[in-house]
């Protein structure tokens, strides 16, 4: 499982991506992250919750009570406009990050096959 500083900086990005089209709740988000990454990345519950709280106070997402499950109202999160523009920023930042880092990455098999 990955746990580098780089991926930690992009937890918010992953969560915002999953909220782009529709609101969602804690477990669904963590499940979709797991599925989308072929189980290479599993976001811990505490990581997810602290990301929710941080983004909520930054105004990137909003919490609201959704439909009841097992008698308890579930907390849903939806993305705000500020959240969308932050997401766009992070995508651009990632593009640059990737370009920069890739200059320094030796691809093991590169020389063998080319």
């Amino acid at each position, binding site marked *: 499982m990955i746990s580098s500083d780089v991926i930690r900086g992009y937890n918010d990005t992953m969560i915002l991506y999953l909220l782009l089209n529709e609101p969602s709740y*804690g*477990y669904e988000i963590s499940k979709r992250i797991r599925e989308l990454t072929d189980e290479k990345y599993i976001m811990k*519950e*505490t*990581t997810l*919750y602290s990301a929710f709280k941080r983004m909520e106070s930054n105004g990137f997402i909003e919490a609201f009570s959704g439909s009841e499950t097992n008698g308890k109202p579930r907390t849903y999160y939806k993305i705000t406009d500020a959240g969308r523009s932050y997401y766009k920023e992070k995508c651009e930042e990632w593009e640059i990050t990737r370009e920069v880092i890739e200059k320094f990455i030796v691809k093991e098999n590169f020389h063998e096959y080319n």
Partner: protein
Amino acid sequence: MNTIRNYLDNMFLGLPQTEEVTKAKMELLAMMEDKYNELKDSGKTENEAIGIVISEFGNLDELGETLGIKHALENKSDIPMITYEDARKYIEITKEATPKISLGILLCIISPVVLLLLLGLSELNMVRVKEEALIAIGLVALIASVAAGVSYIIRFSGKLEKYDYLKYDLFETDYKTEQMVRGILEEDEPIYRSAVSTSVILYILSALPVIVIPLVFETEGLSVLSVVITLFIVAFSTYNLISKSAVNGTCNILLQQGDYSLKRKSNKISRIVSSVYWCVIVAAYLGYSFTTYNWAMSWIIWPVAGILYGAISAIVDER
């Protein structure tokens, strides 16, 4: 499912119960429950599902800053950890020491028996020795019995003393330890329940000999002997109650529930009130009795104080 709830309770142990913290706990629980249910539906066993949920929970330190409890989390490391070994040892010592302590109490309760027996028999003219001699023998037996009893109590409660802080201070246990203690508590439940009910019935019945025997026979000697029977019944039911409820008590201490719940532990007032209260009562009892020599009446303070204590602690606990 309870396991997950307990795990979470443990993680949040000793943290301030602010609105944010309570909300965080609820939402984390919801996420864990969702995950648990889905794992169960996908064919995982109970234990596998719990294992995965707990291993993927993460670390509460991550929430420190967002919940404004960073300081509390850092202080949390001051809370002592009770390991599996500690807990097992505590229960073992309880099992070993409490029957001995109960025996000590039993010896104290029955200490006047020889004295009473001799006086009763002499009253019935069944022993023909001077009364002074009988009293001397009886007193020697009484003192010997009390001495043996007290030495037993002191020796074996000393073994349990080092665990006393668990009754008053917060501590943490891990999941495995808690499961072990819960298992023992469950196993012990029937023994505990039957001991309590047996003893309660015996306590009630213990009054019968002193009431009935003097009513039926009007001989003085027999009423003295009836006290002996009563003492034996009281001694046995006390022994039975204390020795068989000890494991239950220790398990509750280790699980920090019932009388040892976190709420009660954090209520410092109730501890102070209770220790001051009983000191005052003892002082009042001794002061009044020694100045007036009205020992025949002054004992009434005990049942009254006991009932009053219940009322006071109910009020204090509400705070």
